[in-house]
């Protein structure tokens, strides 16, 4: 019963928050209307999204987001330096193959998004059985080091969030 009324609890919270931000004021009226929208939209769209993405430890998301934001800041400066001061001849673009431990599609999506957002690497393709990720690195001397870094730094944490 509860799962029919509230198919995606996190989506409900997100929708209410987005509505309040869109209206750009926090009054009782907007919050109530946001909550009503947040309750109705997941019910109306539940038929198109039957599975629930299960976070087992959602609170770890916050620490992960802070880590990723910090990495984006640091790595952006690094890439800016590469772009501005390194000649094209000295640059060594590489393909990196990452074998995945993650199995859930949501988790893989999140890992791919993180890899693309942290500069220097872009996730390009997934193998057909969804067990390997192809990543392009802008300037890497050692593809194995990049792979180990990604597996250590991001995949382990995403695994903790989802499993």
């Amino acid at each position, binding site marked *: 019963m509860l799962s029919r009324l509230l198919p995606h609890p996190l989506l409900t919270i997100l929708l209410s928050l*987005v509505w309040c*931000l*869109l209206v*750009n004021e926090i009054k009782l009226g907007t919050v109530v209307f946001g909550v009503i929208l947040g309750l109705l939209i997941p019910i109306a769209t539940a038929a198109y999204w039957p599975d629930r993405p299960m976070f087992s430890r959602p609170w770890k998301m916050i620490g992960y987001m802070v880590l990723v934001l910090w990495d*984006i*800041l640091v*790595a*952006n400066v690094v*890439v*800016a330096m590469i*772009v*501005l001061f390194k000649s*094209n001849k000295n*640059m060594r*673009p590489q*393909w990196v*193959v990452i074998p995945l431990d993650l199995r859930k599609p949501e988790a893989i999506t999140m890992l*791919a*998004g*993180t*890899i*693309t*957002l*942290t*500069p*220097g690497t*872009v*996730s*390009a*393709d*997934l*193998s*057909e*059985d969804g*067990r*390997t990720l*192809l990543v*392009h690195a*802008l300037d890497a001397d050692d593809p194995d080091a990049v792979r180990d870094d990604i597996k250590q730094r991001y995949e382990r944490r995403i695994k903790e969030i989802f499993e």
Partner: protein
Amino acid sequence: MISLSDLGTISEIIVSALLVIGGFFTLVGSIGLLKLDNSMSRLHAPTKASTLGVGSLLMASMVYAFAAGDGSLHEVLVMAFLFVTAPISGNFIAKANMHRLRNKPDLPPPPPPPDHVWSTYSEK
């Protein structure tokens, strides 16, 4: 010309710094787009530098609005939207590149994964 509202010194410094950082990173993104010499490398510069650049400009706008007295938070929404969509469009462009450029010298083929094939970049 509408004059800018008067802020305290500290918030003025913060807003100015954020504006300069934002402009700089946006510019670096486009310089990278023009300078780098192969399609996959070009993908790196704008998808990220521009995201951080626009993010920084949005932060400047938010700090400015708060310091001027009418705080607004919906810049966060634009920022979150850009950060969520940038990897997706980057991934789509990467796939389009791999699809168009397979077997061209511009894009050396990636090493084949052990006993399976890439979903976009396959030799078939």
